[in-house]
């Protein structure tokens, strides 16, 4: 009985949604730290049925061939996924988050939304993982259409730059996971990091910048500053943001 009351109190009585303050976590995690969470051996081992139970209903004989197409890397409290879920109801999406409490919060949040809105939010889920190490364990070559890096941790110190979630080396892996034509979205309120991400993308042979017309036409771009918790915080404080949005292009013939 004590158990039931704890469960209740971590969720808001009026909305049924989990309360963020019960899922507070350390501000930053070190992505280099050893992992203590399970990782699929290969993308084929990813448990779609448990992440998207309604779409991959256990009883369906003809197994569903759909795959995750959007990945929100370092998804934090999940605001972007939730906005995208209804904007692209036919697309499977996953948030990847290193902090376990934050991941638990997002899980609860999605479950509550599914309960409160039958038939909706079935296409989003979250995993606790270190995206810097395990992207190839989750996604096959060219599987993703969009990847999001919204307000990533800045890691200011020079010697910590290799902890940054955008780097030339990691872009090689993102280029592998993205389909040709797929798009990578980055945004930050830290000018130095914004320049870093942009220059990494500009100098990478497998990415090209979207034109300003393309940026204007893309409904997702508008969400970058508004959908996530971090984006909202920056907006409230009137902070400036720096975006770099690039398309995966085919590698020029060697």
């Amino acid at each position, binding site marked *: 009985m004590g158990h039931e009351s704890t469960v209740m109190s971590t969720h808001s009585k009026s909305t049924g949604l989990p309360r963020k303050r019960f899922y507070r976590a350390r501000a930053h995690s070190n992505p280099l730290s*050893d992992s203590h969470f399970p990782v699929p051996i290969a993308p084929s081992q990813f448990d779609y049925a448990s992440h998207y139970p309604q779409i991959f209903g256990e009883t369906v004989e003809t197994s569903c061939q759909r795959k995750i197409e959007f990945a929100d890397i370092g998804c934090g409290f999940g605001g972007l996924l939730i906005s995208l879920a209804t904007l692209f109801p036919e697309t499977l999406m996953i948030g990847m988050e290193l902090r376990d409490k934050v991941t638990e919060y997002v899980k609860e949040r999605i479950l509550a939304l599914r309960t409160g809105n039958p038939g909706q939010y079935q296409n989003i889920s979250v995993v606790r993982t270190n995206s810097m190490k395990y992207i*190839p364990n989750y996604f096959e*070559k060219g599987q993703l259409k969009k990847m999001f890096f919204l307000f990533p941790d800045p890691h200011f110190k020079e010697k910590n730059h290799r902890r940054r979630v955008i780097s030339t*080396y990691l872009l090689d892996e993102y280029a592998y996971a993205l389909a040709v034509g797929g798009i990578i979205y980055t945004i930050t309120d830290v000018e130095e990091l914004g320049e870093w991400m942009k220059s990494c993308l500009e100098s990478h042979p497998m990415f090209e910048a979207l034109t300003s017309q393309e940026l204007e036409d893309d409904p997702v771009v508008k969400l970058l500053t508004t959908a996530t918790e971090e984006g909202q915080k920056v907006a409230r404080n009137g902070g400036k943001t720096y975006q770099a949005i690039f398309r995966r292009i085919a590698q020029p013939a060697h």
Partner: protein
Amino acid sequence: MEDQNMDDGDQNRETEIAPAQIAVHPSQESVSVAVGSDLRVFNLREGLPVKLSDDGHSDSIRAIRYAANGKLFVSAGDDKLVKIWATDSWRCVYNVASEKRVSAVAISNDGLFVCFADKFGVVYVVDTRAFTEETPTSIIKKGVPILSHYCSIITSLEFSPDGRFIITADRDSKIRVTVFPQNSLNGAHEIQSFCLGHTEFVSCLAFVCNQEYPQGFLVSGSGDSTVRLWDFSSGSLLDTCDVGAEAAFADRKEEEGLLPITDLCTVQDGSLVAVAIQSLTGIMLLGCDLSKRNLSVVKVVSIAEETYIPTSIGSASTAELLWMVMGASSLNISDIKSLVRIRVLSGFSKCNAASVETLVLEDKDTPGGEQMLQTLQGKLSVEKEAFSSAAEAVKNSMRNLLIKKQYSAERRDFRKRGRNDIKNKAK
């Protein structure tokens, strides 16, 4: 914290025990052994020990290798130096400085590029086209970084048989296949595939190919006790051979758990794979049927009389011999500092009707004979008690280097508390 673990490793005595390595010239003109910081080369063609015209290494050598055309030889390791040698004179033509300890080396099939991997997972390339006969010996060059495994030790580095790909294996059970571009100095950005299936560190890679399949297939050995066969261009796993389970280890103790694969060597036509396994006295031979895409155990060649567990194996493409070394440095048991023991297996060739006639050669029958053994082993007869100590030491060093430390929750907390950056951040 993984970067810290790696730094811890620098102070860790056990990881300093380096398993001995062996490399055979592609047409068996010479054979080289590395033990600790010692590089020993024997000229088989002339039957003479080679005098190296260089000071050599100052810390444990972790990787040695001949170029496919036999002209260059590379050695590298814990002293953060990659030495490139010309095998005609055994002059060290290049000293390449690395920022970190070096864990693996490879030479492109055209013999022009030397690649090396450091303990932080970065692969570097060195263009050797600049050197000519007049180049002064031992210029310090730096490698150009071309790709990286995110903070994982790279355990093996290979070029595919057609030279199109560079393949890297790491201690996180990952194998990555990357296009090796014409202008590799601009980086190797295009990942062809990942070969995923191993559940522990990947320790070694080799290729099997024949006329029908010239691009070949990849074989890998791992801490998960399996050898796997891959179509590396797509990353598909074709077969898994659980050698730990297949081999009836007579003296196997239950508590030993998984038996890691330590090294692999394949014959020219791809039909046979030699497998060195931790705790297996001798060598296991697997038959490889490329048209059926499978691996199967042919037999275990037992070398029981001296508890012989090879730490590294190699062969020349021209001879049907498998060269094996068992050895370790920094043993410090009684007055034995290090152990090197060479054995040579004959009949390492085409696998006919699932049978192979092999023979472990007597010392006097080995190429180069007793003089070769004297040079590479340091002495002719090796103390019996050294073998079991060396096997134990090598096992521990491999465990410390490659198996992830499983800290208890308390210990993890304790480690965290000791770290300043987290201390300062705490409110």
